[in-house]
């Protein structure tokens, strides 16, 4: 069975017809030709397919496209400016050599962008000592190395670029 839907991908409305079994990842890669998100496992186990869906990081292989009619999808390609200027995270990944083969990289960068927003909004991780501020109001979580490692552990990198990835994210988080 097919369905019609519209996705706002990297700021552009894109209408498409998909087989209802199509994941968001395959809709992007195979239907729309948006290949910035990568397929490493198709099972939600590696993070290569991470995109921002309405600003939050998701593994796009684990959700069906048909469930996201009208959604805003941002890929690593869309994090860069239209004129080619890179997002600060992307520049930091270049400067710190935060990748080798580059296949996990768009997912790492989307994940990092989502993660910075989560920390800013006060979402704790299992590495967070205590959560809320006075009166139960969430406060931004300071991101030390341990926090970043913990929060980025859903994104595998077989090349082993982890140390440089953490350095890159710290450089941006510290701004």
């Amino acid at each position: 069975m097919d369905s019609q839907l519209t996705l706002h991908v990297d700021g552009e409305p894109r209408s498409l017809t998909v087989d209802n079994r199509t994941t968001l990842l395959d809709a992007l890669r195979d239907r729309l030709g948006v290949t910035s998100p990568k397929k490493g496992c198709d099972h939600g186990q590696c993070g290569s397919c991470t995109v921002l869906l309405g600003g939050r990081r998701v593994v796009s292989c684990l959700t069906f496209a048909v469930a996201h009619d009208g959604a805003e999808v941002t890929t690593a390609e869309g994090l860069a400016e239209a004129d080619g200027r890179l997002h600060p995270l992307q520049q930091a990944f270049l400067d710190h050599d935060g990748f080798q083969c580059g296949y996990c990289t768009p997912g790492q960068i989307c994940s990092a962008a989502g993660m910075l927003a989560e920390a800013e909004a006060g979402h704790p991780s299992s590495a967070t000592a205590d959560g809320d501020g006075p009166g139960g109001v969430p406060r931004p979580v300071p991101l030390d190395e341990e926090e970043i490692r913990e929060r980025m552990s859903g994104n595998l990198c077989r090349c082993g670029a982890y140390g440089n990835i953490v350095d890159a994210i710290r450089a941006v988080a510290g701004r």
Partner: protein
Amino acid sequence: MTRTEEEPARPTEPLEPLNPRAVGTSPVRLDGPAKVTGTAPYAWEHALRDPVYVHPLQSAIARGRVLRMETGRAEAAEGVAAVLTPRNAPRLADSSDRALAVLQSDDVAFRGQFIGAVLAASPEAARHAASLVDVEYEVEPHDTRLSSDRPDLYRPEAINPADEADTEEGDVEAALAAAHAVVDETYSTPMEHNNPMEPHTCVAVWHGASDDGEPALTVYDSTQWPYGVRMTLAPLFALAPERVRVISPHVGGGFGSKGLPHAHHVLAVLAARTVPGRPAKLALTRQQMFCLTGHRTPTIQRVRLGADSGGRLTALSHEAVEQTATIKEFAEQTAAQSRMMYASPNRRTSHRLAALDVPVPSWMRAPGEAPGAFAAEVAMDELAHALGLDPVELRVRNDPETDPRDGRPWSDRRLVECLRTGARRFGWDARTEAGARREGDWLVGLGVAASTYPGFGGPGSVAEIERTSDGGHAVRIAAADLGTGTWTVLTQIAADALECPFDAVHLEIGDTALPTATVAGGSAGVTAWGSTIVAAAREFRAQHGEDPAPGARTRSGMPENPDLRRYSVASFGAQFAEARVHADTGEVRVPRMLGVFSAGRIINPRTARSQFIGGMIMGMSMALFEESVLDHGTGHVVNHDFAQYHIPTSADVLDIEATWLDGPDPHAGPLGSKGIGEIGIVGSPAAVVNAVYNATGIRVRDLPVTPDKLLRY
């Protein structure tokens, strides 16, 4: 590596050393902007019209025959273009390589082998239709169990890449009997899988009636060796090699598993032949990779060491047992490095194989060296303990003056300096007796191991240099970048070879439309391709002078390096690890690792550091996590995904640092460079295991070191 049909005459005079200017600096990766935005096209991602999607059918038995395949329901399913089986698949012109003779017979030689494929208009349709095919088998009993007492173990003719299976020197038994201290232990390493993050992908287009009426084939691939794919596929499909074009500009990791073509290449082309003119897209799933892309053989290794009271080895014996497949042999060189690592007057090495009903093992990062050094370097730690000697000192005392294999001088062996430098930087003198240091609930220990990797990298590649209209130079060679920094480092080398600015070089790689290149394997890629570029640049200058007109062009190979015969060339390193073991749970954390390497000239410190560290992390992973669990009842790797086959993630990787001794190897060719891609995984597993021993007093000899092996009941 293998020479190809396209190599022009090459110079015979040895190459003078390169004058480094861009070489040795750290430009940011040239492919970086495309990688961080995700716009660098990997094999699946080339924009092609009207594709068919290929979903493989796989054997559900480990040995036997396909009797019947009921494909009617699949063929009738919506969107299905064809269902291939052994009965209807196109015949190959050559089916002598049984690992590549896909769908050419009904025989099943391992579980998960291809027995067919569905071609459909969408991935969902192909996958669903594949579930509708019923298969009836004639099942034969299978045998997948490796042990060192199997009566059918045999000695291979040669071991990878081309060495003798056994060596014997002096009288090992007598020396052991007379030794002051002896270690005699058996070590094992499990089956492992490379698991590059980009699954193996092949997109094939069969041009049935191209302009001249002859068929042609285009393959968008993820490969460490574009020309290897061409040379393998062409004869199977009765094509002249130049009718096959392989395009692979970016490779999402490989670690050896994309070094040689596999069965999925053949299946993709069979599918493409079925739908001429349409791209046939095949990407293996993560699960399928566990039976179709090679694996590291499990090993059982008996190591015996004898030493005199001064801590000098008097006997060194390293006997390895491994598996291979019934359809094709792969003999890993597990004990090979024990032939050259330490001095000993009496020495034995041997390799024995069991041919089992398993997929064909293949290259996985430092095949041979990585599992071999685990056993040998843990045994050295055990010997140090038996002698009451510091493990660094034991290695220093047994450093051979010349190569024990043939007495050749070393080109540049600085292992002792690596060990001493590393010991100082790591704070080795804080190491205590085994089991003596406890911080809260954590037992803390330090470990060391030595590393080596052979210096490969000879002729076989060709580079083309052409002056471009913008005053720069195009440099063309069908090399591969699988995260190795090839785009960047070959540009650095070309800039220095042409004595021009870095950004005046326009490099083209990853395409058989370019001149031939050897495999990105054996840690030899950059040395071999870079030396070829140096040779071609000098030919270019000789032919066209300092300021040639646009369009001036030269192709050249590289000469043999005569020093490789006179000297023994290898990279060396010392690896240090700290382990913290939880006293109650056996959980292991590795807070620090340090590798100090001697690998000749480092072309790009930024990318080299990443590569060394990546290897060390894979070594830590080998020590603690990785194990493909083969269920002998079914012949199937049961933990065939990232939820169950564990590799490190960010939270596992703490302070890991790599550094190196400066200076070119004077005998390693014009660049003075040696391999860096694999040595990081050699020795690092032993360093971690030795650190765990130092922390706990528990000696683990069977990888991986899971917590259960560290609990005292």
